């Protein structure tokens, strides 16, 4: 884009939350375009245009290279009702095109971009390009709390080989039971079946997991064991959510909810609502998810279930983070943390610290995120939770990527990959490969990125994770964009879109539509671009996401150009 528009004015916005990553990217640009100039806006500036002109005119005026304007956010303290700098900017928009015959790029963190949109709408409309360098953090496995009966720390810690042995042992025990069922074995059988299903899911054999859970369900029904029935149904729900089929998951959790309500079991009702919320969140139905979590919170407080209260708060935090409200997400995570520490629940403590880390990445403070992630890592190692340990190494990688240190990030992803393979965690292995792909994409190595993405795709297809498949296809699309193969990119985006629609993942659908829209826009097919991007706008508006109006403004600009 910069090379294309050399010599003529264009106004661009680059959204990047991490100052380090921004400096890294700007440095890369400067290496490629020697005429590029970087202008920091001094803190407290009101007239941005004058400040920039002043800097560019000295010592010598007249260079026609592109201009990167950084640090404007230093003059935009968040939380103030009015921003004189932005008002001035809005009024000065004509001056920019008169003065500069070169691309001008404003680098801003996300919150400042939102302020700019709100307080300088006229200036905003002039942006012809928008780059998002907000690193999408992989949803950590521990963010949402579900209770899969059978998900024991112990089973998760076994090495990949030991897991196979354990599976064989449990299969053997269960086959012995079936030949001669004794009433005193019932409780043990339920435990074994649920653990077996968990292990099957872990090593990526969802069909076997489903079969096993159906057996547990049938056994519980035959014994008239309603709580056991609820456990099996709830686990089936979690399994289907893991398989990326949240609609089926919702069906199961609703059965559990109805059973718990009929039995007047408030604790069970709370758990079911929590799981239902997580399934709705996986569908991208965040408002419905929040409703469920809030009901869960009320019930937990009513019955004095501290663990449930913490988990509801934690999930509310995750939902608000996905709604683009990192500060609220952090508040909830802090409440969750306080409860986890109070009741001495190390696993929840780790989960809430992980969510805090996520919140700070979103706020553009990856250093703080790293501090929290390191605490999570220490806890995971202390309690011997290897799955969480490896997921946290992955998150540390993401935080270093946000700091603009992709090589450091790769080191962490490789550790993540190593442990995931050791413990036979197929989902974790897939995530690590996907992240390695993204890191290589950030290093400007789209071919390597594609190699990793293809390995990721292979795994998610093997373990039947439809949601993961959608994400992987979307990543491949973006990599082909970088390779300069928009047709191939669109093909992948189309596949990603089909999957997200099929499984009802509205968030994924909106992302795929937007990315595809960007390609059609570049190709000049504005009508098609508008149609696609509108899907994203509608979704974001429905949620009240802060990005909604920014996206809407972009679509409006395209409409104007079409006329």
């Amino acid at each position, binding site marked *: 884009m910069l090379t294309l528009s050399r010599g003529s004015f264009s106004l661009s916005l680059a959204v990047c939350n991490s100052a380090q990553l921004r400096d890294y990217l700007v440095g890369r640009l400067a290496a490629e375009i020697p005429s590029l100039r970087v202008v920091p806006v001094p803190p407290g500036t009101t007239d941005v245009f004058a400040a920039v002109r002043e800097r560019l005119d000295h010592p010598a005026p007249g260079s026609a290279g592109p201009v990167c304007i950084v640090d404007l956010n230093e003059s935009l303290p968040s939380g103030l009702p009015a921003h004189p700098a932005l008002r001035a900017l809005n009024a000065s928009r004509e001056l920019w095109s008169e003065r500069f015959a070169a691309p001008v790029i404003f680098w801003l963190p996300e919150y400042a971009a939102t302020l700019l949109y709100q307080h300088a709408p006229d200036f905003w409309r002039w942006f012809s390009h928008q780059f998002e360098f907000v690193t999408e953090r992989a949803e950590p496995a521990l963010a949402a709390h579900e209770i899969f009966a059978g998900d*024991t*720390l*112990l089973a998760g810690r*076994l090495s990949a080989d030991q897991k196979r042995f354990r599976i064989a042992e449990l299969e053997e025990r269960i086959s012995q039971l079936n030949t001669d069922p004794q009433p*005193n074995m019932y409780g*043990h059988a339920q435990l074994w079946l649920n653990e077996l299903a968990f292990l099957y899911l872990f090593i990526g054999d969802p069909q076997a997991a489903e079969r096993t859970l159906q057996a547990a369900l049938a056994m519980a029904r035959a014994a008239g064991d309603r709580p056991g029935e609820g456990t099996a149904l709830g686990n089936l729900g979690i399994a289907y959510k893991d398989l990326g089929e949240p609609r089926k998951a919702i069906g199961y959790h609703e059965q559990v909810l109805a059973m718990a309500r009929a039995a007047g079991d408030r604790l069970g009702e709370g758990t079911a609502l929590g799981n239902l919320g997580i399934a709705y969140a996986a569908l991208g139905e965040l408002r419905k998810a929040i409703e469920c979590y809030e009901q869960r919170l009320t019930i937990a407080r009513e019955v004095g279930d501290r663990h449930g209260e913490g988990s509801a708060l934690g999930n509310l935090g995750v939902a608000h983070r996905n709604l683009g409200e990192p500060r609220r997400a952090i508040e909830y995570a802090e409440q969750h943390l306080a409860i986890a520490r109070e009741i*001495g629940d190390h696993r929840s403590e780790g989960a809430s610290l992980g969510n805090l880390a996520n919140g700070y990445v979103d706020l553009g403070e990856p250093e703080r995120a790293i501090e929290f992630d390191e605490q999570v890592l220490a806890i995971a190692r*202390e*309690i*011997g939770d290897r799955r969480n340990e490896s997921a946290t190494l992955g998150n540390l990688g993401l935080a270093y990527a946000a700091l603009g240190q992709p090589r450091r990030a790769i080191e962490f992803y490789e550790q993540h990959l190593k442990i995931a393979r050791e413990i036979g965690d197929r989902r974790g292995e897939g995530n690590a490969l996907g992240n390695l792909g993204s890191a290589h994409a950030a290093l400007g190595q789209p071919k390597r990125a594609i190699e990793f993405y293809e390995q990721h795709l292979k795994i998610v297809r093997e373990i039947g994770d439809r949601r993961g498949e959608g994400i992987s296809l979307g990543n491949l699309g973006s990599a082909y964009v970088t390779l300069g193969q928009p047709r191939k990119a669109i093909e992948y985006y189309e596949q990603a879109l089909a999957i997200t629609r099929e499984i009802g993942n509205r968030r994924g659908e909106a992302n795929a539509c937007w990315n595809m829209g960007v390609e059609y826009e570049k190709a000049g097919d504005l009508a098609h671009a508008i149609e696609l991007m509108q899907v994203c706008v509608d979704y974001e508006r429905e949620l009240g996401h802060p990005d909604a109006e920014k996206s809407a403004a972009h679509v409006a600009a395209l409409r104007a150009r079409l006329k």
Partner: protein
Amino acid sequence: MSSSLEKLYAAFDPQPLRADQPGEHRYVDLDDVRGPGDVVPRLASRIRLSPEPTCQLLAGHRGSGKSTELRRLKRELETGNKRYFVVFCDSSRDIDRNDVDFLEVLTAVMRQMAAQLREHAQISLTPGYFRDRWERIWNLLSSDVSLDSVDLEVGFTKISTTVKASPDARLKLRELIEGDTGNWLLAANDLIGQALLDLNKQGYHGLVVLVDDLDKIVLRPHEKAGCSTGEYLFIHRQPQLSAFMCHTVYTVPLALAYSTQEATLSTLYGGNVPVVPMVKVSNPPPQRGDYQPGIDKCLQIIARRLEDSGAQQTDLFDSDQTRDLLVRLSGGQPTELMYLTREAMITALPITENALKRAARERRKAYVRQLRTEHWTVIDEVRRAGQFTRTADNDQAIRSLLDNRAILQYVNDSDWYGENPVIADLSAPGAR
């Protein structure tokens, strides 16, 4: 004469009678003089009737014959058409009674279960998920224990030794396990499930663990929990104690079973806590005086022991009066009967009234040192009425009186209490 003394001394062993050992013929059924205790049938039928694991308590004064009753329960469950595999867990081997927590109970249960399954059912348990937990604690304790070929018994013996050897290591271990007990129980239940699967194949109907001697823990305020050590173990730790997926019976201090926590205990452990009461050798006030059927049973106990030693009554007692005094002084506690006899026979044989009184005075000294004003209020009431009134602040006093057997509990037509006969002629300092 000296060989006769040795035989008599051996015959009056206060150790509990073991149903599976020689000397069982010394057992005297005391049920009808203890009142409607029928402790063994009650415990046994709850186990037999429930396909789900049960967790029950058994209370009784020290020396009332609790261990003997538990051994009867074992034999009862091992016979009949529904045969159980019974692990008799003598917890005193693994537990420091001054300081007990769930870790020690778990250690004792798993270690002895593994040993008895191996010995009597040829079932060998692997460490399973415990291996992982052990590795973790040894790593965290920076111990260089090699775990390459550790089996279940060896692993738990190692924990038991560590816990007993140093209070520091004990605290550290407990801290590590706190918050992780769920995983330890899961590991235990996984092995119990495997054992049950194998036991079923051998025709057993289930697995029962009897944990003896837990009633002997020292009752005192718990450093952290803000309650007594007994309440801590049996009430705060109840979720863990009752989480084994097999039938369990724990002995519990009588003082706890009869404290203000009585209702809590019966709620937590599914019903009133059965109590092995004292043999009633005297009538409650206001009637007082000997209760002949009870005295007769105690005489029968003495007669069986004499038979066992091959001696005559005249070898042991100088007169019937001395013998009857012994029974009265025992307060109906079989173990006390043995202790007093042994104590008295050390001086000379046959035992004279004076020797017996001297022995009783020795026992009494211990009480003189312990009893405080608040205790005497309760004792006086028990002397007068055979009952005591609970007030807001005498719970601790009643608990310690029951615990050290200064007052004894009898269950006949109704519950009543009597003072221990050895303190009968004592009174509160300055009261006379």
